[in-house]
């Protein structure tokens, strides 16, 4: 799948490009709208990642020109504005989705994946670590044969950790994923959720699956 990234800030552009390349996409990076319009012809790309604020032609103009041409390539908009009306404007002009800066690479990848029209079947709906299984479709969690009842936040935290099994996930990212982006509890509410999860998942079981990395966050691994 080929992706054109239109971003004038070189560093941001590079990060986006690297992240996408590492996820297995073919990526080209351009810095301005005119160049983007020149390149994005004849369905050469499967997806555009478009910064709204560009030198010369603004992202909205690029978007409008594309749609006026009858080009229906999916467009993911990057915007620094958290204002809903601005996003709505972009969506009305034919953007397919948006990511607000500063975005996490993970969020960007998730949205790109969603827009990429790849059959979702490839991604396994059941996440597994040792004998712990989490069904992302039915939201059922089992350790061995025993079903585990989880509250919504417990489920969200466990799902996030299991998606990144084996990797240390910082508390900040866990909080962001499981709660509203604007939520800053001022305390490590994640710790409380983890304590509860441990009771439900790891109590009287071996091996322990949820591990603390002090000062950083948590990791789920066998």
């Amino acid at each position, binding site marked *: 799948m080929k992706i054109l990234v239109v971003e004038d*800030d070189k*560093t*941001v552009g590079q*990060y*986006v490009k*690297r*992240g996408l390349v590492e996820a297995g996409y073919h990526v080209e990076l351009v810095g301005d709208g005119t160049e983007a319009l020149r390149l994005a012809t004849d369905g050469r790309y499967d997806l555009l990642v478009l910064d709204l*604020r560009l030198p010369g032609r603004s992202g909205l103009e690029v978007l409008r020109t594309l749609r006026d041409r009858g080009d229906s390539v999916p467009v993911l908009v990057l915007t*620094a*504005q*958290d*204002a*809903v*009306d*601005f996003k*709505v404007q972009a969506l009305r002009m034919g953007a397919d989705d948006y990511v607000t*800066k*500063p*975005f*996490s*690479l*993970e969020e960007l990848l998730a949205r790109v994946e969603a827009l990429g029209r790849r059959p979702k079947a490839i991604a396994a709906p059941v996440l597994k670590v040792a004998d712990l299984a989490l069904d992302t479709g039915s939201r059922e969690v089992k350790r061995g044969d025993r079903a585990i009842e989880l*509250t*919504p*936040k417990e489920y969200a935290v466990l799902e996030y950790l299991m998606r*990144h099994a084996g*990797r*240390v996930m*910082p*508390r*900040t*990212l866990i909080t*962001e994923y499981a*709660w*509203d982006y*604007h*939520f*800053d*509890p*001022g*305390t490590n*509410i994640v*710790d*409380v*959720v983890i304590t509860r999860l441990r009771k439900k998942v790891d109590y009287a079981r071996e091996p322990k699956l949820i591990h603390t*990395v*002090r*000062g*950083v*966050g948590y990791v789920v691994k066998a």
Partner: protein
Amino acid sequence: MQTLRAQLTAWYSAALVLTLGAFTLALYLARRSASFHDLDQRVQSEADLTNGILEESYRARGVLVERDSLIGDFRGLLEVVPDYLIITDADGRVLFLSQTARELGYQKVEQLADLAKPPLRGRNAGVIELAPDGPRISYVVRFVTGAGPQFGAILAGANVQTAELGPQQLLTTFVLILPISLVTALLVGSWIARRALEPVDRIITEVREITDGRTLHRRLAEPMVKDELGRLTETLNQMMMRLERSFAALRRFTADASHELKTPLTVLRAGVERSITTPGLPQETLATLEETLLEIKRMTELVDALLTLARADEGIAPLHREPVDLRAIVEEARETGELLAEQAGVSMEVATPPEPVVVPVDASRIRQLLLNLLTNAVKYTPAGGRVSLQLGPSDGRVILTIADTGIGIAPGDLPHIFDRFWRADSARTRTGERPGAGLGLAICKWIAEAHGGTIEVQSRPGRGTTFTVTLPRDAQA
């Protein structure tokens, strides 16, 4: 006297009454002095005429006096004189009294006759107030020289009151006219003022409608006539143009600042995120990266809050409203509240009505508001305390109540808690916790108001705090 109209009317009327008064006074004085002058003239001419008659008659007939009295046919002739007429002989005895003079009575006639007795004292004209009770008489004395030796003097006099009658009528008329003209002045003045101020009322209405950034492009209709109000309209329009320009500049600035601040944050974040997921890093490095990540998130949040508030000032409410059952949002917040409460050793109660409470709101903003208030409630409630969250509809409105049994807010602080960057002294927060930027409650207030609702607080130090958020059931504002 609250309105310009009333003031103008009062001034008009006062001016009219004053003018009328001054005019009447001047007229009265002029008329009075003319009257007195006329009186003098009349008396003078009566004396002269009498003298002339005496002289003529003397020349024609010789003797005019018989047995110390004027002869008969003269009496008849002189009776015609309407005023006081006294003729004395050379020794000062009264030869003749006119009808009017006789009516005065002996005592008063004597006082008059004394003036016409030789030797003559001082002036031969003047005003005398007869004792005991008037009248005041303006008189003139004339010596009779060409009518034989018997005659002494002629005194002609007239009642001063007859001169004052005319001017006094003028005053009476004025007193009668005054209330009528005052009422007329008030009515006409008020009407004129209303006519004149009508455009001002229109300007007020139009300007009032221009409330925020959304309506700032409007202009007042400029009248063709460049009178004072025309110029006022023009000036207001120019002012609004300048305001609109600075609003536009602010909007540009917010957009620019948003971009300029967020791009580096994006770079930072992407870098830290990449690094933190690199396998095999020492734990210390990981902890540092996590701290950095948290700070980046907080900084982003701060930038967002500032931009949101800046945009709110422009009157642009970036809300994405959809009908939502508020119970779902409250239930969602319940778990988070319970988690926070558990950590702080505080108990948590949630009460929602059995029926759905569907309101068109920006769900993510209401969630933010709830979590913000819940976090605060738990933060300021010591272990063992209680935090409660209640949702209840109340005629056309929806009320969210977040109450705690915490340390409360000092009465002096209450009016400021919704101010931006305001924070109570740090003693309020638990030690070791980092205080926020002081924008949380300002954002809560904005969220409530952007939904057309309100947020209120009640607090007693040591007893607890209750925040009450009221939202309208129908979308507005």
